[in-house]
């Protein structure tokens, strides 16, 4: 649905060259809720804005529905753009217009007749839960309500793609959740592909099925959320994953473990989906001459599946501990030793 092929974007600012995107390739499939995460200045917004041609690549290609944007004539390009809705961090509502007029704006620009506009706007305000607010002005709305207006406006032209630039960054956690749920509904019920840019891992965890991590203009890791969350490779990814999935042994427990003199090894085990329910630990304690002690555990819900992280201290002879380790590996459970 959306493809980036070796996209490079350079900005020239006061005679200095600045490369915002360095050879980015990414593929967003129909039906995805694709999240792009990265720290400030990573190039996320620049990437997003290429999809509706607000930015033009210096090199490389951006394809939407198989059409290369750079090769389109003005008229064809505006046709493609009408198929793309966009919402913003600061909502960008017209303060001088009512909620109804704000939502109607894209249709007014497209010279749609009044009756159709009325019907379409009402339908969307109903969908986002603001049917009673059509005559209010943006000043009279809360942040969450404003973003709902922004969403209704973005959807009023029946787009197939929705672009979200930090759509929840200006909202409190509770409102964020309700907006994310709305985005999920839009994806499911209206079959709209969503590309969302954020610096909050929580957003990715709650609604995305795919994620790309960006750093200094590069995509450093990308794929299914469950894979990236389960096996983060790059330092930045690990940091982001940490913000939503805790896997560190609490310091007090760590102190105690260090004081113990018994021979032991501490392993971090990761379980995905149905693996979580396998009785691995009880098998281990039965089959091997070891004692075990769970020092840390965390189960996170992700995309309808679960990611369980258990840090377990095993006590016993070195040989037996080595055999146990091999057994875990053979059972295809992700395992790593945490400290000697």
């Amino acid at each position, binding site marked *: 649905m959306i493809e980036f092929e070796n996209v490079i974007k350079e900005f020239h600012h006061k005679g200095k060259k600045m490369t915002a995107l360095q050879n980015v390739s990414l593929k967003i499939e129909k039906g995805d809720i694709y999240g792009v995460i990265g720290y400030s200045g990573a190039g996320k917004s620049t990437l997003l804005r290429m999809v*509706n041609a*607000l930015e033009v690549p210096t090199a490389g290609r951006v394809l939407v529905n198989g059409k290369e944007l750079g090769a389109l004539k003005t008229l064809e390009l*505006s046709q493609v*753009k*009408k198929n793309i809705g*966009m919402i*913003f961090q*600061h*909502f*960008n509502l*017209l*303060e*001088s*217009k009512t909620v109804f007029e704000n939502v109607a*704006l*894209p249709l*007014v*620009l497209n010279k749609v007749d009044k009756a159709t506009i009325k019907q379409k706007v009402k339908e969307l305000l109903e969908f986002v839960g603001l049917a009673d607010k059509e005559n209010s*002005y943006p*000043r*009279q709305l809360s942040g969450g309500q404003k973003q709902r207006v922004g969403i209704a406006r973005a959807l009023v032209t029946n787009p197939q793609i929705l672009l979200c630039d930090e759509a929840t960054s200006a909202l409190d956690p509770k409102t964020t959740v309700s907006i994310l749920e709305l985005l999920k509904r839009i994806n499911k019920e209206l079959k709209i592909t969503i590309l969302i840019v954020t610096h909050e891992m929580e957003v990715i965890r709650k609604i995305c099925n795919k994620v790309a991590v960006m750093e200094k203009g590069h995509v450093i890791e990308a794929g299914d959320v469950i894979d990236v969350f389960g096996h983060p490779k790059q330092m930045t990814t690990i940091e982001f994953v940490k913000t939503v999935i805790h896997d560190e042994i609490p310091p007090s427990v760590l102190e105690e473990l260090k004081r113990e003199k018994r021979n032991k090894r501490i392993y971090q085990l990761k379980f995905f989906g149905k693996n979580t329910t396998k009785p691995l630990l009880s098998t281990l304690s039965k089959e091997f001459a070891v004692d075990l002690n769970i020092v840390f555990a965390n189960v996170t819900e992700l995309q309808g599946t679960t990611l369980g992280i258990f840090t377990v201290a095993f006590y016993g002879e070195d040989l037996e501990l080595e055999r146990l380790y091999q057994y875990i590996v053979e059972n295809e459970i992700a395992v790593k030793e945490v400290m000697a």
Partner: protein
Amino acid sequence: MNSVSTDLIIQSIYETLYMVSVSLLIGTLIGVPLGILLVITRANGIKPKRIFFTLLNGVINIVRSVPFIILLVAITPLTRLIAGQTYGSTAAIVPLVVYIAPFIARLVENSVLEVGPGIIELAKSLGASTFQTIRYFLMPEALGSLVLTMTTATIGLIGATAMAGTIGGGGIGSLAITYGYERFNTFVIILTVIILIIIVQIIQGIGNRLAKKLRHE
């Protein structure tokens, strides 16, 4: 009534309002488009045109930096050319327009620039043309501020008409000079000041109310 008749006062008020409204109308027709052009042709505007912007900006600066009383005298040939005479309320409209149009352009520029970059970003994302961006995004959003702007312009214009009156433009300024100052009639001077204050207050009041309404505060 101390050597000025009520008729004369009413006549003067009428002349002042005539000069203000006609020059405001023409000044707006010239100033508003120029103000918008300043916004869209500037370096980071939606249609940057460097040379055009620099020229327009320069001309406006030059005209704005000439004190009105000097402008009045300096453009006498132009006034004669357009109005056919240099004396009277109608003739005064020419320098008043030359004075107020660049002023309005500057004020409009400031009002429109207040509209945040987010709104322009929105217009772009919706594929709006330059005209649509002005018509549906910039102007509605700037309207409240524009009303205050026009109020400021109108009040500036009243001051200028009073000055124009001193060299034969008629109106309240003329009344103050010929019947007050030249005949040492303090009553007339005070009366004209009071009339001017009342007119300014009324205009400011209307402007504030309208702006408040348009901003939905």
